[in-house]
């Protein structure tokens, strides 16, 4: 049965070519077999990451009918979104909420968007970040300063944009909806021989939801007029020699909401112009060592017009109303280098960074005397340093950090990280991070985590002046937080993934106003549970749900933080009807909201807000997608708890979208 082959007389060289060709085929096959799909890479990474991570991908974003980053964040356990009285929406994390969300670090492809150095935070500029260019949003709840430095305090939100190969063509989309909302988006992605390009332009114009207020701070009734215009452009260029360029430009203009003094008006206007440019290079030294370097420059310009009180208020002398104009420019420049060493069972990431921050050109005009509030009759310029609302300021910091990811066994990952930041104004701060992720068995993963983080005082908290109510304090220290977390992930039931996360955070040196001056005082503790479930049905249909219990408490007063709900929940069904239609419906539950002890009003009751989005693809024309969304389907009346009055949330509203890819 065997064949005897005599090759003795055949020179080996004659055989070399066909056999070499076969080896090439074999090597090609072997290389192909190393493929890991990106979704699994991300899932594997989440499984082993010592952090509470939620990932919302483009598919879910598309189907749920989200229009902005905030629409995406509202479905994440532990996160909440609420209105403020001025142009900014607030992101709360585990019951901790501030005006400018400065305790949350928002990144765009790893680049910090927290460029408003006066107030801190990025939500005032990027909360309405368009979703069309988002590939996924990674949300890490808990501290992340050990790698990311300042502001990664209660959460880190990393927006990952689509790369050239994800787009692979041109996509044009338009949306029209309630409140005269119109959105246009152009997304382009192309891979050339030596470089990739991905770009996006988005323009949004909306009158916004005009909320009715029965009794404002001065007894008036009326409607808000929260108009908003936004232009966002994003560019990513990558050369195959390792160099890349990223740039983003964002221009927003927002109209009046409830007023800076909670007095309705129609004059407030907040303009913000922000951009950044980042040039980087990835150098793969060998299979084990990679060196990443980047330099960047960020700019943020704010130009605000405030009608603090309307005509005739707070006294009759203000015939044109109490008016102020404020503006400022922030600049950030930095350099960072990062070495990644990957070995068989460990990875070490070590980096050095240096950044300069600058607050300059503050402008202040008012028709009152800033220090006393006495009327002046007309707007006067107080931009002189002696009378301005804030001092010009410079800040520099450098940081060194290192993180070890060590897998002593295949089922165990240990994480140890430390970062030291040194600021020229308040000194140095260490932030460690420890974690263990243990795959107990095929179906269960247990994580134990500990992390510390800091929030640098903002320039307003340090250098505000000539303000009768808010005076800066140059001696402020950063706020610090220590967080313990334990999470269990289970997938023992077919197609069902479940996780439970317990957290306990203690915030020290909270910066708040004592009398009229910013001061480090007090401690706050927040603890609770986050539970998530996802049941995959079939053909892309699924049910997802989450529940959060949170109890943020002021340790000095022993009182629960105000204007938060202890219980929040979310449930969604994505139903893939057939090859053309998809229906996504969801409901968000917000429990009864807390009041301050001095507030005797009845608390805001619990509410359930439902949305539905019907998507049709390739219905009449190939590569054409149509989408129709109804938000607050049952026109539920709900409010964001606040003083002196609660902020009504939008009633039933609609949005229609048409997009074409070629």
């Amino acid at each position, binding site marked *: *049965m*065997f*064949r*005897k*082959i*005599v*090759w*003795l007389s055949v020179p*080996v060289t004659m*055989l*070399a070519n066909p*056999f*070499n060709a*076969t*080896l*090439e*085929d*074999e*090597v*090609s*096959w*072997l*290389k*192909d*077999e*190393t*493929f*890991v*799909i*990106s*979704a*699994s890479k991300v899932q594997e990474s989440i499984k082993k990451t010592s952090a509470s991570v939620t990932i919302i991908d483009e*598919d879910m974003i598309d189907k749920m009918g989200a229009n902005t980053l905030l629409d995406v964040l509202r479905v994440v356990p532990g996160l909440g979104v609420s209105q403020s009285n001025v142009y900014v929406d607030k992101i709360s994390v585990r019951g901790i909420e501030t005006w400018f969300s400065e305790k949350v670090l928002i990144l765009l492809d790893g680049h910090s968007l927290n460029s408003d150095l006066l107030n801190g935070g990025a939500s005032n500029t990027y909360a309405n970040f368009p979703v069309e260019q988002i590939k996924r949003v990674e949300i890490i709840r808990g501290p992340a300063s050990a790698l990311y430095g300042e502001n990664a305090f209660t959460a880190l939100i990393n927006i990952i944009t689509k790369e050239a*190969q*994800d787009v*692979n063509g041109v996509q044009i989309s338009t949306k029209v909806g309630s409140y005269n909302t119109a959105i246009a988006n152009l997304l382009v992605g192309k891979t050339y021989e030596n470089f990739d390009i991905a770009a996006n332009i988005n323009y949004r114009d909306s009158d916004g939801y005009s909320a009715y207020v029965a009794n404002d701070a001065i007894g008036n009734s009326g409607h808000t007029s929260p108009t908003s215009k936004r232009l966002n452009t994003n560019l990513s260029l990558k050369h195959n020699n390792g160099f890349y360029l990223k740039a983003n430009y964002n221009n927003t203009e927002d109209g009046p909401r409830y007023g800076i003094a909670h007095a309705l008006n129609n004059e407030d206007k907040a303009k913000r112009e922000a951009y950044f440019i980042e040039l980087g290079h990835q150098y793969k030294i*060998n*299979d*084990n060592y990679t060196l990443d370097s980047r330099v960047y420059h960020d700019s943020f310009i704010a130009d605000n017009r405030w009608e603090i009180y309307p005509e005739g208020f707070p006294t009759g002398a203000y015939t044109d109303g109490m008016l102020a104009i404020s503006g400022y420019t922030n600049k950030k420049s930095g350099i960072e280098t990062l070495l990644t060493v990957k*070995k*068989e069972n460990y990875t070490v990431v070590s980096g050095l960074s240096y950044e300069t921050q600058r607050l300059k050109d503050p402008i202040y005009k008012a028709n009152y005397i800033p220090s006393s509030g006495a009327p002046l009759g007309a707007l006067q310029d107080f931009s002189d340093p002696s009378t301005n609302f804030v001092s010009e300021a410079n800040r520099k910091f450098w940081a060194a950090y290192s993180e070890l990811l060590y897998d002593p066994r295949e089922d165990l990952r240990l994480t140890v990280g430390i970062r030291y930041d040194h600021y020229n104004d308040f000194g140095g701060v260490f932030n460690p991070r420890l974690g263990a992720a243990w795959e107990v068995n095929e179906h269960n993963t247990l994580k134990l985590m500990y992390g510390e983080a800091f929030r640098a005082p903002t320039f307003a908290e340090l250098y505000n002046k000539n303000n009768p109510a808010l005076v800066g304090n140059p001696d402020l220290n950063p706020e610090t937080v220590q967080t313990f977390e334990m999470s269990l992930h289970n997938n023992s039931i*077919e*197609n069902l993934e479940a996780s439970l996360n317990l957290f306990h955070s203690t915030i020290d040196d909270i910066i708040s106003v004592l009398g009229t001056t910013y001061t480090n005082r007090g401690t706050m503790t927040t603890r609770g549970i986050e539970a998530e479930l996802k049941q*995959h049905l*079939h*053909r*892309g249909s699924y049910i997802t749900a989450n529940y959060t219990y949170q109890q943020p408490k002021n340790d000095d007063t022993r009182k629960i933080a105000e204007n938060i709900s202890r219980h929040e929940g979310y449930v969604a069904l994505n139903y*893939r009807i057939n*090859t053309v239609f998809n229906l996504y419906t969801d409901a968000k539950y917000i429990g009864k909201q807390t009041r301050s002890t001095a507030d005797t009003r009845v608390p805001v009751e619990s509410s359930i807000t439902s949305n539905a989005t019907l998507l049709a693809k390739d219905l009449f024309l190939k590569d054409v997608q149509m989408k129709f969304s109804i938000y607050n389907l049952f026109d539920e009346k709900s409010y964001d708890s606040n003083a002196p009055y609660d902020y009504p949330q939008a009633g039933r509203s609609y949005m229609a979208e048409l997009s074409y890819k070629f």
Partner: protein
Amino acid sequence: MKLLLLISLFILSLHGQNVLVINSNSNIIKYNEAVEEFSKTFPSPFKTLDITDKSSKEIKKALYDEYPDVVYAIGAKAYQYAHEYIPEKEIYFSSIIDWKRLPTVPKQYGVSNELHSGMQLILIKTLFSDVKTIGVPYSHYTQNTLNDLIKNAKEIGIEIKAIKVDEAFDPHSLNNLLQECDTMMIIADPLVVKNNSVIEYVFASAKINKKPIIAYHELFIQYGAALVISADHPTIGRQIAAMIVDPDKTENIQYPAGTNIIVNKKEAKKIGIKFSPDILSTATEIIE
């Protein structure tokens, strides 16, 4: 007549099943062979999805649109997408290196790329009776294959000396292993078989150390492999077709049914290794 009726009924029952063959990469000969042999044997119509240049989004849409009852995933990429998006379906696989490294699905069937390690070891012991230790370079891609080898080797009194390699694998690191072992076994591992120069170096070192090399593919004969024990890949496509047609009568995961055993007598003589006279009845090919 009864047989014809049975076959007709069987084919009719298959008509209810929507079968999708997913080819990971149509530029890979091994995958194409599997598709070709499957299509020659499978008795019912089926659809083919070539995902070579498709994005994740396109593959996802295609799988949901098609939503087959049965999937034949050829290669790791095809299997992972089927596992990711339609894990509730019957998934058959082949041509995957060390299939145990990939996540499982409830209804998982397939033909392993590797031959039964016990069978290979018995064959080695039969042909080269002096072999007591076998050196095996492997990586994290082939950990399970190595574990099987170690387990089966112990049972027949052979010692496996393994060396784990990573992306920065330097073939010089195998010299000690060659000196310590009676033979070296090359398994299908992407970090070991990574290019021509690595393979040339390994075989040159083996010659210097007068150690035979046992390999998993005929192509290694030209480099001087003394013994090749390889799976007959076209057979695998036919094997999968048979498994889908009659899933109740088979093991969920099978070893390749066809085996080629090539003895390079010329090379073995050069090295001076003794081989058994059983060689004539065992080998499918002998190189003189």
